[in-house]
Every structure is written in C-alpha cells, then in structure tokens.
C-alpha cells in the first residue's frame, strides 16, 4: 500500500462517492417531493446543478479573506471524500488501522469546519450567524455522535478499528442487535441529521431565516463544491453508521452489495421522514436536545455496552 495507490484510491472514491452522493441527494429530494404531492426533480438534477455551478462565474465578497474563502470548499470536499476513501478501503480491502473510527469522527467534522471557516471568511453578518449556529450545532451533535461511536467500539472489544468492528460484527452479529446498539444507532442517526444539516437541524443554512447562512456569499464552483461535499456526506455519514451498526457492506458478493444499499436506503428514508414531518428547531432547542436527551441516552448506551448488553 503505497502513497500513489492511496492517491488513486482517493480519486476513485471521490468520483464514486460524488456520483452516489448526488443520487442519494436526488432520492432525498424526490421522496420529499412525493411526500408533498409533488413530482420532484429528475434524476440528473444534482448533476445538472453541479455542472451549472461549475460553469458559472464565481464571486468573492470584497472583504473576504480570499484564501480561506476559496479553499474552504476544497477542504470540505477533500475531507468528505477522504472519509469515503477510508470507508471504501475498509469495505473493499479490509485495510484499516486502530483508530480509524476516531479519524473518521474527526474527518467528518472537517467539512463542517470548512463551512464555518468559509462562511466566516466571507464577512457577511448573516453568514456569521449561520456559522455560529453551525458551530454550536457541531458542538451539540458531536457529543452524542462520539457516544454513538464509542458504543460499537466498546462492544467490539475496545477497538477503534473499523475492520475490527466489522469482524466482530461478522462473528457476533451486528451491533444493532443489542440494546446499546439500538440506542447508539438512533443517536447516530439524529446526530448525522445534524451533521448533514437536514431539517430539523438545518439551522445553519436556514433558507427561511438566513438566506443560505454560511453559504450566502458563495457562488459558482465554490458553492458547487460545498454542495458536493454535502452530497458526499449524505452518503458517507450513513455508510459510516452502517459500518458501525449494520455490519457494513460486503463488496465480495452482489447480494452483499444490494443488502448494503438497502441498509443505506433505510437510513436515508429515515432521514427523509424525520426531515419532512418536523419544523426546524431553534439552536438552543437543538443543543438541549443533543446535550440533554441524546447524551443521556448515549451515556446509558455506553454503560450498557461496557456491560456487554
């Protein structure tokens, strides 16, 4: 496994996850539309969006710190794709190392971080409000999310290696099959909802309040990259959860792949349902939700997991 390999792998997974992510986004939009008696966008919609954004002029707010402004989206995509690459590596080759769960946890925050840095460099007050929310939200969901990661890690014999966790699940049944697993899974789903920025936790973008929040100043390809990052997150996040709780995706057989896709879709549909039957929360409510109930459950889950339940 040398660096060139990894680079190639990275590029490959970037491509793959972009495509899949956009399709996932389409599924999200389409199902949403159908829930609302609408037709919804055609399947190629997100690709068209991206292509269009790529072809558009890019504007930079005059007061921005240009470097950060331009590179924030790049970082976001890179980090998101890197998560994908890690996961893909784990699925396909069983390559991993102790701590990749933690690495992923960190990598998953990087896109949010990039959004925050980008938004903050734009010098727009609405963006500032947006990023302060994004930040607080990040604070909020990170704790339960961490709990949700620790649960399978503890259950699989105190390992922070995805491969180990997968192996453990293959041997002893998926994590979801236990009480702590169920708790952890739910927490993970809610936390991801926040991470990906879906209603009820879309406060940072909050179209209705902040005109796009952190993205307000972004245009053209930079915006496209952010959207791409979001799309990749939309697939990487749930996949991560699938790995931790659902036994991952088995790439060696067709049924394995299909089962994996179904697992993924299950989570996605859960997202969409929650998204469409709830209003956006206020930031303090969101924080309370995460730091209150979710963390409580998280700690209960951890304790149960330590007890082996």
């Amino acid at each position, binding site marked *: 496994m040398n660096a060139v390999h990894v680079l190639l792998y990275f590029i490959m997974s970037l491509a793959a996850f972009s495509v899949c992510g956009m399709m996932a986004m389409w599924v999200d939009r389409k199902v949403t539309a159908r829930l609302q008696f609408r037709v919804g966008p055609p399947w190629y919609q997100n690709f068209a969006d991206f292509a269009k954004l790529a072809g558009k002029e890019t504007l930079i707010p005059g007061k921005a710190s240009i470097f950060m402004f331009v590179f924030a989206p790049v970082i976001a995509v890179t980090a998101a794709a890197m998560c994908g690459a890690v996961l893909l590596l784990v699925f396909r080759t069983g390559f991993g190392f102790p*701590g990749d769960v933690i690495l992923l946890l960190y990598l998953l925050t990087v896109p949010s971080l990039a959004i925050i840095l980008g938004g903050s460099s734009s010098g727009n007050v609405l963006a500032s409000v947006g990023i302060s929310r994004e930040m607080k939200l990040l604070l909020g969901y990170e704790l339960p999310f961490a709990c949700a990661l620790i649960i399978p890690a503890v259950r699989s014999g105190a390992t922070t290696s995805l491969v180990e966790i997968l192996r453990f699940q293959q041997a002893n049944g998926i994590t979801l099959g236990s009480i702590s697993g169920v708790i952890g899974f739910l927490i993970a789903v809610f936390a991801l909802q926040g991470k990906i920025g879906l209603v009820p936790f879309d406060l940072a973008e909050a179209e209705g309040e902040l005109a796009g929040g952190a993205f307000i100043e972004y245009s053209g390809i930079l915006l496209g990259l952010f959207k791409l990052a979001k799309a990749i997150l939309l697939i990487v996040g749930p996949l991560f959860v699938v790995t931790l709780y659902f036994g991952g995706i088995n790439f060696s057989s067709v049924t394995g792949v299909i089962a994996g896709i179904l697992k993924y879709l299950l989570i996605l549909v859960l997202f969409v349902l929650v998204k469409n039957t709830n209003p956006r929360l206020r930031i303090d409510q969101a924080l309370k939700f995460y730091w209150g109930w979710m963390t409580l459950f998280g700690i209960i889950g951890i304790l149960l997991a330590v007890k082996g339940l």
Partner: protein
Amino acid sequence: MDVRVWFLPVAVSFATAFLHVVFCKAGRHFRKWLSLAGGIAVAAGCFYSMYVNYMYLSSGQVMSLLFATLISTISLFSVSYSQWYNPEDNFVYDSLLFLFIGAMNGVVLSHSLIALYVYWEIMAVASFFLVLFTDTEEARRAAFKYIIMTGAGSVFLLFSILGIWLIEENIFWKHLFFFSMLIGTGIKAGIFPLHTWLPDAHPAAPTPVSSMLSGVMIKTGIYAMIRFYFVLFKPSWSIGWETILILIGVITLLGGVFLALVQHDIKRLLAYHSISQIGYIMLGIACGTSIGLVGALYHVINHAIFKSLLFLGAGVLIKATGSRELGNYGGLARKLPLTFGVMTVAALSISGVPPFNGFVSKWLIYQALLSKGGEIAVVALAAALLGSVLTLASFIKVLNDSFMGVKKAEISKQGLESSPFMNMPMVLLAAGCLLFGLFPGVVTERFLFPALGEYVPLNIELIKTASLYGWLALAVFCLLFIFGRNWMRKFRKTEPFVGGEIFTAEETAFDGSHFYGTIKEIGPIKRFYSAESTGKLDIYAIAGKILPGVNRVFHNAAVRAVDSVYARGSVILNLAVKKLKLLQNGLLARYIVWLFAGIIFLMEVIRR
C-alpha cells in the same frame, strides 16, 4: 554521566542572565544578540546532551532531557520573538527571562528532589517578576495571585518532597504525599480547581512570557507529576488514583474549554485552553498504560508547540491592534497573512484535526482511554471527544473574529510581521505542528519510548499508517492549490450581500462574543458559568475569603521580620525590585511568608 554536559543548559541560562546584568549599559542591539546567542546555546546544549548521551541514559533521564529540550527550544523561539517584540530596552527583563529559562531547565534536569524544589522556587520568583513586568494594576493583581498560589503549591510540594525523603514505605503516607504532590504540581500545571492563577497571569504577562508560561512552564508541573508518580508508585499503578486522575482530567478538560469558549480576551482564552489541554495530558497520565503515557508526553510536546505558537501569534495581533479584545480585531487575514496561516495551523492542531500533531497525541490518549476500558474511562473518552470539538469551536471563534470578517480596528504598522526573528519562530513552530503530525512514528520511537523505558513499545506501524491520510490530504491540498491559484484570479469581487442593504463593518460584525451566548443559557451549564463569573470556582478567592485571619496574622507578624532580612539579601532580585518599585508593595514579602510558613508547618509535621 558528565555532570557538566548535563547542566549545561541551566548554567548557560544563568550565565546569560548574569551577562545581561553585566552588560546592562551595552545597548539594545548587543543584548539582542546576546539573548539570541544565549537562547541558541541553551537549546544547543539540550540537543547536544540529548544527542551525545542518548544511548546511555536511564528512562527518567531521557524524560528529563526531553523536557529540557522542549523547554529550551520553545524558550529560544520566545526569546527570539521577544527581542523584537519588546520595543523598549530593559536588561532586567532579559535577565529575568534567562533566569526563568535556567530555572525551568533546572527543574526538569535536577537529579534530586531538593534541587528540584530549589529550582522550582527560582522559577516561581522569576516568572513572578516576569508576570509583573508590565507593572499595570492588572499585572500586579495577577502576579500577586500567582505568587500566592504558587507559594501555597510550593508548600504542598515541599511537604511531599520532605515526606518522600523522610518516610518511605508507609502506604498511607504515600497516598497523602501523592495527594499533596498532586496539589503542589497541580497548581503549577493548572488542573481544574487550582487553575485560577493561570487565566489571570497569562494575559498580564508580556506575550513572549505568556508563551513560555503556557507552553513550557506549566509542563514542569506535569513533569513533576509524572516523576513523582513514578517515584511513589513505581511498580503498580492500580491503587485507585486513576479514577480520581481521570475525573480530574475530565473536569480540567471540560471546565477549561467551556470557560475558554466564552472568553473574548485572546490571551485569557488561550490560558483557559492551556488548562483544558492539561486535562488531556492528565487523562493520558491517568490511564497509566504505556499508550496513555506516550500520549500524554506527546501531548506535552505538542501543546508546547502549538500553544506557544498561539501566544506568539496572539502577540502579533495585540501588537497590530493594540488590544486583547477579540471584538476589536477582524479582517486581519489580509494584513497578517503569515500570522493567519500559522494561527490556523495552530488552531487546527490544538483542536486535534488531522493531519496536525494534536490529532496524533489526542488519538493516542483516546486509544488509551478506550483500551483501558471501564465505564469511567469510556465516558471520559466521550468527554474528551467533546472537549476537542469545544476547542475547535472556540478557536473558530478566534479565527473568525481576528482574521475573517471585516476589518474593524486600525492597524499599527509596527507590529506587522516585520521581523524575521519574530516570524521565524512562528513558522518553525507551525512546521513543527505539521511535522509532529506527519511523523508520529519517528517522534514516538526516538523520543517517547526511551523516556518511558520499561513500558512495552507500541506497534508504531499503525500510528504511521494513520499519518498516511495526513500525507494524502496534504498532497491533495497542494495539488489543488497549484491548480487553484490561476483559477482564483478569475473571480469577481463584490460587496457582501446583506439583503441588498449596505452596512458599515461595525454594524454587522457578528463577532465571537456573540457566538456562544446561547450555550451560556443552557441548563446546568448556565449554573457553571454563573458560578465562574461570581468567583465561586476560584479557589484563590475562596481561600481568600476563608483565610483572611490567617493571612493577616502572617502578614503582620512573621512577614515584617523576614521582610527586612530579605530586603538586604539578594542582589539581582533587588535590582529588579528597585526597577519595579515593588519593595513597598510587600507582595514579595508575602510570598516569602508563605514559603516560610510552609517550612514551619512541615517541621511541625515531621517532628511529630
């Protein structure tokens, strides 16, 4: 072991300090170079010792050298920075600085506990004057607080030193001494309830000094803690302290970071972060496993790197804008691109974002916690993860306020990254952040494992793999940067869009003080904050309330006597004291009183 080589750093430092006094009339320029030479000499001495003696040393000695190297390197940077940072010419400052450096080196390099204690006190006094240096009301209060608390800490330390010296095998005493040591070193290190001098002293001190205080001085506390730990409980760790240490670690970590979150004085904020990072180190130590200790040591190094970097960067900001308030910065990224870059790196490092060094050490600590198992450790892991995010959050605020957004303050020309002697340390430190993140294998193998001698080495390969992703990220980023530069030029610039309205910068500056207001309002956290703001968490203030009588007694009776004796005593200090017109103030006296009180108390205990 060649003692001369061993104490080279200390000796050189003291010599430089002395030379500064000697050449007090020699002019600014000369002493600039003198300082630099001294700093380099100290660092070189350390490196030399490290290099020459590496193979023959015991693990404890390696650890000493490790700390010494760290101290002298960071000091070198600070000194270099400091020479171009402080515009006015003051030999007292310089000599104090070197006294301080020497004392720190002495603390970590001394062979005996008593020597350690002596250096410890010298360090305290030197740093006290350095904190006091700006001689403002704020500085006085902070320095006073600092010296009182350190003095109290010394008492505890002395108590346990003497205890260890006198009474050996009684397990009860051992625990008592350990506890006393914990308080003694904990005050220096700034673990949570004992931290309160730190957020006051750091901002008050001149920035290069803060950078040393926070970067290395508090590490001497950690050093002492680790050493004592080894000395006292060598073969078996499991004597119940772990849980307490973990709890202390968690509280320190979260307490520090939560308080940091709402600060808007940049140095204060950094000071609180020092506390929270100490929490991580504590967690690592608490685990007591090899991986935990490696993590803790690694984090000590890392923290020294990025925290001093942060302070140096903050110094640039303060210079440029003349203010420590975050709210007064804004939009500086264009004016101070270098500072912006290094601060970003440091901020990401301290938050543990890969591929920077913070990630590696934090990861080691997490790993330690997880593999340690047990409810407390795992929950602590969750807390540690949260701590990282909170750190990130608070640094986002710093970055947002100072570099992003719109310009608010007028920028004075003179502070603008003018001198390479200021820039170089920052760049080097930033490079350190990256390198220590990218070559964790080397670091652990070369430095940390020897320091921990008997513990089973880890599988380094795995750590190396983790950094692969860091490399990858770097590569991708560089590629994109190369391609991106051209393409960036095509962008059109426009005014920010705020609903079509046009505003001035101040009106819409949603700065950091507004960022985390919400968090303050949430349930129990609210109580925490209000407790903090009303001083209920400040052990110093509490003690001040409880012990006014004691204080007064000491002040009135014993103090006077010792005061006059002392006043004739020291030469260099006297010089400094004159300079700073501190004699009348009686602060020093009070400190000495605490010292003596400690000794008297100790005698009392021993006699029984």
